């Protein structure tokens, strides 16, 4: 499991609007982050860095959307997500 390092934090600060960063709900973000790790998404750091918007969903909503994404991608969903993190964006449609 990867941990957050200074470079990651710098990327978050440089890469997102301060307005977006200010709206992050730490408790909710942590729940989602841990949920991703528990579900084989060992690169949860990168999802947070690249798709911070997904962490604005409430934890329960996020879980529902993630399960729909898993169902949509089928059996080898972990491989598919691992090879293209852009697939996480599909969660917005579910």
């Amino acid at each position, binding site marked *: 499991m990867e941990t957050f390092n200074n470079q990651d934090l710098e990327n978050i600060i440089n890469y997102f*609007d301060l307005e977006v960063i200010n709206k992050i*709900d730490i408790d909710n973000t942590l729940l989602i982050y841990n949920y991703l790790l528990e579900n084989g998404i060992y690169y949860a750091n990168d999802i947070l860095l690249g798709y911070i*918007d997904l962490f604005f969903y409430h934890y*329960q909503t996020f879980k529902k959307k993630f399960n729909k994404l898993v169902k949509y991608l089928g059996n080898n969903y972990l491989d598919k997500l691992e090879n*293209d*993190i852009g*697939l996480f964006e599909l969660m917005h449609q579910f």
Partner: protein
Amino acid sequence: MTSNDIEIVKKICLKYNYKFEDIPKWVLNHFSPKRIEDILSIEKLKTDRFKYLFTSNIWNANPSDIEQILDLDCWNNPKFLSLLTPNIWRASLQKVKEIISLNDWNDSKFSSLLTPNIWRCEVSQVKQILKLEVWDNPKFKPLLTSNIWRNNLNNVVEILELPYWQDDVYDNLLKPSIWKVTPSKVKKILALECLKDKKYKTLITPSIWNADPSEIDKILNIKQLKDPKFKNILSPNIWLLKYNQIKQILELPYWTEEKYKSLLTSNIWNKNAEEITNILSLPYWKEDQYKTLLTPTIWSSNYQEIVNILTLDVWNKPPFKDTLTSSIWNSNYQNVIDIISLPYWQDEKFTSLLSPVIWNSNPQKIKEILSMDIWNDNRFISLLTPTILCKTKSQIESLIIIAEKLDIDKYLTTSYLAKTPSHIYAINFFLNERHIPSVIDGKLHIFYNCSNATLKNKYKIDINNLIKLYPIPENFESEKKYGNI
């Protein structure tokens, strides 16, 4: 001042083009016309460089001191400029000279202390504070802020000498806000037996200074807080409220109902019992359609905003139908109205952006991004997903310019936008060096689309090392290639 003197001052004011009415009454009562003229005649105070220093504070200063203070060479040194504010007139020339000449200012760890608050302090106190040995210990460094000058030396020393700082548990408390607390309050709080329990470790943050020491034990012993259903509620924010306010919230009847249980999180302490009751007694929560809106984010909003937002007539029809989720509580009514009214939602290509995430943005930001010319170009249209609204215009521009320069612009996907320009450059360089094409079968190489952790775990490529090995040239992004972006 006699009426004759008043007339003299009026003439002086006329002579120096200064409004008589701007001279405070206490100045007329305490000072002679000569002293007023001595100050008004100081030429340097009329220059652009120093005119901002002419405020009511100046009347307390000695005219000869004013001239000599303004003549000091130190104002040519940028590090001292932060001291040159109207507060400087609290100090005499002697004091200004003595403080400025302290050798300690050559030590960079003290640079944050060069603020106008220093003029409140006696020179001897400034010297003694700077000489304290604790500043050699990095854990006390966060305390070196201008708030320190609001305290007297005894208080500063008394706080710094407390034995608690030897224990890492209390490191979180070594923040500038400690200077707003009296040593006796700090001691009373830290001596509390209840706080020594490891389970309360996370509650020991600077917010605890808001608490009344006599209430802390009572608060931690509130019986509801020991109930598992309230386990997510114990956070440092609890110290923002008094014991009675906390009790009132915990005794509200709502917490026995399943649908309200998820609302029991630490940010509830931003509200009081009355506000919570007003919000939770709204009729909407009886309807299934609105139940998903009951998440802790609701505590970021308020009763009136919630009512205004929910009574909007857009939620039952496209294109906004699916956007009403709890993330809307991160926004406010005016923002919601302004976003809804944007012209872009008439254009089908932009409606895919209408996800609940949109409420985390604002109309100006959305306009800035959606008015970019790139969205008229088919190469980039696939990048129009909700995530784009969390980026800044300049980040999008940088990534597009890099894609064009590296000749991969026709193959961009949303995962490309999840990278930084330095990542993209390093991956491209790495592939080129190994003669691996960046585009295979009309798709970007997998290295552009997978996560950094996957690159490391699966392909043994450490992106951070790669960025160091192949740093993006300084001017790489500066030569803009794309049309008007």
